[in-house]
């Protein structure tokens, strides 16, 4: 669905990646003359360090509105803003209280206050994974779209209303699923689920994050293993896009089982895709933590 093939729509809306498209689609459905395009379609992970492709640039060239997650997820947003001064930018996460990026979580556990100064700036950007945060994002998207296209304010409002209701329902389901696990600690291997955990009364007990530029130190790994043993944590949560090798090593040593969650950055699309994925995640967590 590149910009040039479709007949020029009245309002070209672009979503920065899959989850933003899922949310935006529900707000604009049925508005006449609005076309939605998704950038980074072939990318199947988070957008950390994403490089813009010709396809994305073509989409952007004709765009009127860009909906993006924000909070540091789309590193390319500065360049895009500079290149297309006229483009209306909608930051879905605007106005939300962000959690600090938890990549260096362990220093908190040690209670080393001295390390505080390391934590300037990096926010955890994975807000869409918690339905509560997604609702705030939908509200942002709705308000900004109305500002951009006041003529159809009513339709946007109604769409968002319906969607928000569904999300509220989803929120209830997730809360019910996770209620038995209240107060439990969870170990994950990508900081994707911190918001979900915090919002539903669980907490991130440990995080081991690896990518090309980040490898854990053996000391940290050892502390995490000690921690898992002490707390009796029985489940480790990997994400389907990321390696499970370290998780397997920890599992071998502690006996904790490995489960897989979905960061919802790629998928089949569709009206219910978002809700289904979130529900699936909640079910996985609740099953894993069931004693």
């Amino acid at each position, binding site marked *: 669905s590149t910009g040039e093939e479709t007949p020029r729509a009245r309002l070209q809306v672009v979503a920065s990646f899959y989850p933003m498209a899922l949310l935006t689609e529900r707000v604009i459905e049925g508005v006449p003359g609005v076309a939605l395009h998704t950038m980074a379609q072939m990318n199947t992970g988070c957008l*950390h*360090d*994403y*490089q*813009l*492709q*010709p*396809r994305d*640039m*073509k989409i*952007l*060239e004709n765009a009127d509105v860009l909906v993006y997650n924000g909070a*540091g997820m789309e*590193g*390319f947003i*500065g*360049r*895009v803003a*500079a*290149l297309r001064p006229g483009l209306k930018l909608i930051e879905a996460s605007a106005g939300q209280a962000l959690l600090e*990026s938890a*990549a*260096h979580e362990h220093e908190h556990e040690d209670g080393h206050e001295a*390390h505080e100064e*390391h*934590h*300037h*700036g*990096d926010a955890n950007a994975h807000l869409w994974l918690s339905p509560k945060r997604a609702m705030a994002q939908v509200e942002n998207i709705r308000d900004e779209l109305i500002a951009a296209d006041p003529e159809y304010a009513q339709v946007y409002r109604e769409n968002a209303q319906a969607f928000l209701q569904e999300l509220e329902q989803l929120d209830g389901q997730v809360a019910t699923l996770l209620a038995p696990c209240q107060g439990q600690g969870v170990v994950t291997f990508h900081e994707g689920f911190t918001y979900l955990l915090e919002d539903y009364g669980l907490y991130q007990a440990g995080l081991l994050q690896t990518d090309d*530029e*980040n*490898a*854990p*130190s053996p000391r940290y790994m050892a502390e995490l293993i000690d921690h898992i043993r002490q707390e009796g944590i029985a489940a480790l949560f990997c994400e389907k896009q990321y390696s499970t090798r370290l998780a397997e090593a920890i599992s071998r040593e502690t006996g904790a089982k490995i489960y897989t969650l979905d960061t919802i950055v790629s998928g089949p699309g569709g009206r219910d895709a978002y809700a289904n994925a979130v529900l699936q995640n909640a079910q996985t967590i609740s099953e894993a933590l069931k004693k």
Partner: protein
Amino acid sequence: MEWIAQLFPALRYDFMQNALLAVVMIAPVMGLLGTMAVNSRMAFFSDALGHSALTGIALGVALGIDQPVICMLAFGLFLALVITRIKNANTQSADTIIAVCSAGAMALGLAILSRGGGFAKYSQILVGDILSVSPSDLLSLLVVLVAVVGLWFYLSNALMLISVNRPLAASRGIPAAVYEYVFVGVVAVAVMLAIQWIGILLINALLILPAAAARNIARNMRQYHLLSVGIALVCCVGGLFLAFEMDIAAGAAIVMLCALAFAATYLVRGRLGGR
């Protein structure tokens, strides 16, 4: 401009126009510098610089300097000088020394990164993309182009003699070490600046592949330079349009064309009187 857009629909887009101007300026710079980089067996020099750019930033942040680009540049220059210094001691081949320094610098960077955070916001500096070049970037590129071409008039003869045989060049009164330091300094600066706009893969490939392709068939310096710059230009412009048409990453398309150019010159080398 209308007829251009008629002929090349891709040029209707601003980003394509900017990208085109950018490669037209970068290609000659890399084509020129590449001739001597290949002669001096520095094929992985810019790769090493690129990979250690993050180390420069990390060091800067760890030391509390808040000018990431300056730190990156300073560290790149430092690394370039260290590599040249060790290389001139003549204990090892150039590629080994580059590998050692590159690995050491990268490991240092990773060690700093694994100790404390706050770098993610800078790592975007390194993900340059030719498609997102802005008009102000174009101005900086022009400056680099003029500076490098100007320098080349003074440096190229001496660098050629040094690359043939260092003691012989020294015996003719050429201060070989000075010229080498200037050359690696220029390469380091060009690489570290351009990396923000075009990314590391593209930079290293543009520096080495056109010159290597030219070397397959060139029989003298004039042919070598002409072919190197020519191949760089053709592949860059061609790659850009190819990427647009085929919907693939621009850098990847350009590099693939360069690799094809190498393959082509490699295959015809015998027939044209090369080796």
